[in-house]
């Protein structure tokens, strides 16, 4: 546990000692603010944050890979992976530490948007249930996006490649929902719809917490973290 903490703490320090965390944080805050204002401008103001949560997931498609791209790709580029993998730390502990660090950043970014929610509660009288649901969904979505980004970071020593590939995977997972709509009602289309992140997120944005969707995101995250550990192990055989 101390070692996971050591890895995570080091990464968090790096984020906050470089402009990266601040830039990503500001972009996130600015763009979600834009979607928040759209929610307010709704002709039928139900004091809901649906568009805010939907927008935030789209922004995360771009921002999550930017956060994760450094984590393992840079270790390979600098060669420090050789010291990391010869320290008495298990491969999964390395992955856990790295992942934890970006999870903390994600939570910090989400916490900053609390300002908007506060405004909403001051000036309107929204139902708190959907807000909780939305935030839970956003966190689960973000956690999965970061796991995907961590995997691509483990597969290359080029940070840009890692980010672009992760964005690609996230976009595909997001939009398979529409593709499924086009194919219509075959078994294939149902399967495609089932793997879409958007299809699983929509309920959260509407304020519904369905265990099925929670399990989906947790599985997605677990699968990609598992693959990351394997990718790191494979690096030893290279």
């Amino acid at each position: 546990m101390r070692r996971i903490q050591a890895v995570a703490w080091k990464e968090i320090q790096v984020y906050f000692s470089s402009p990266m965390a601040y830039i990503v944080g500001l972009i996130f805050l600015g763009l979600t603010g834009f979607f928040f204002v759209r929610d307010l401008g709704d002709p039928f103001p139900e004091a809901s944050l649906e568009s805010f949560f939907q927008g935030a997931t789209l922004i995360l498609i771009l921002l999550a890979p930017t956060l994760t791209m450094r984590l393992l790709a840079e270790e390979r580029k600098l060669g420090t992976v050789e010291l990391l993998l010869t320290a008495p730390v298990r491969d999964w502990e390395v992955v856990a530490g790295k992942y934890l660090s970006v999870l903390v950043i994600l939570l910090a970014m989400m916490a900053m948007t609390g300002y908007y929610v506060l405004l909403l509660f001051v000036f309107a009288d929204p139902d708190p249930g959907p807000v909780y649901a939305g935030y839970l969904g956003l966190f689960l979505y973000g956690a999965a996006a970061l796991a995907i980004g961590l995997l691509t970071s483990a597969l290359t020593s080029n940070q840009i490649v890692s980010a672009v590939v992760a964005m690609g995977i996230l976009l595909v997972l997001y939009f398979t929902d529409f593709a499924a709509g086009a194919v219509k009602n075959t078994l294939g289309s149902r399967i495609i719809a089932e793997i879409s992140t958007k299809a699983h997120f929509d309920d959260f944005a509407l304020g519904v917490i369905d265990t099925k969707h929670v399990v989906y995101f947790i599985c997605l995250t677990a699968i990609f973290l598992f693959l990351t550990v394997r990718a790191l192990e494979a690096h030893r055989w290279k």
Partner: protein
Amino acid sequence: MATEYREYGASTNPPAMIQVRDLTHYYGPRPAIEGVSFDVQKGEVLGFLGPNGAGKTTTMRILTGFMPPTQGKVTIAGFDVVEQSLEVRKRVGYLPETVPLYTEMTVTGYLKYMGSLRGVAPKRLPVRIGEVIELCRLGDYRKTIIGKLSKGFRQRVGIAQAILHEPEVLVLDEPTIGIDPIQVVETRRLIQDLGREQTVVLSSHILPEVSMLCQRVLIIHQGHIVAEDTPQRLAQSLQGVERIELEVRGPIAPVTAALRRINGVTEVTATPGRNRHTFVVQARHGQDLRDEISKAIIDGGWGLLSMQMSTMSLEDIFLRLTTKEEL
């Protein structure tokens, strides 16, 4: 000359700190190392000598648990590097060839991180960091960003992180490569200090460095150990050999054959030149074969351009062992 490789029995006692048995590693179709076996006793400083591509880094990466070997077995302090990798890694300090460092961290920040990663107790860590900074003479650079340090100082930071957790075994891969001569002297002095108390395995392609720092030398060439002894004995064992170097104008194969036929010649190696070739003839101690050699060359109808006799130094052995051309 195929050096007889002596078999290490299970009877080695006391048990060696490092036991390497029949290590083979493939990256592709050709083995990078093959059938490498050796022991390192507690407190010994072992030198791994070989030119680029000999397999030094490969061996060290296996010793440090970075990668599992294709075949063979390594134990360090009784722990298997594959099966009990974590136990091994706790006991080994490693300085990789490229000295990988997080360039954006400060020296102290980096050592703190590596220390906690290596499991140094939180209470002990600041004390220990102070000690290694003192030992590696990094006192003036505690707060310096690593990226701004010169290569020599980065090397010292690399050594500092390797000894931070007081490992039983220190593995240093080409610790003086690419740094300026003054820093080389400093680094060697530091290694000498460390070697007084610790088991050290260091690799190098610089012979004088190895003879200066190590009690025992393994010479590795194309993935095989070709010689193994103390630097002194390696020199002595071959001092008994007379070496004659000659330049001949004539075809390589027949000249070599003619030279080999001379009574007392133990080995002939040839280095092709433009229109003359250089031959090195080795003879048993005390035999001056220069008369016979010149006679053989002239009888063959070739031109003898020069001939020199010398006694081998360790540097020659190394050159011969590692640049030998098969005819």
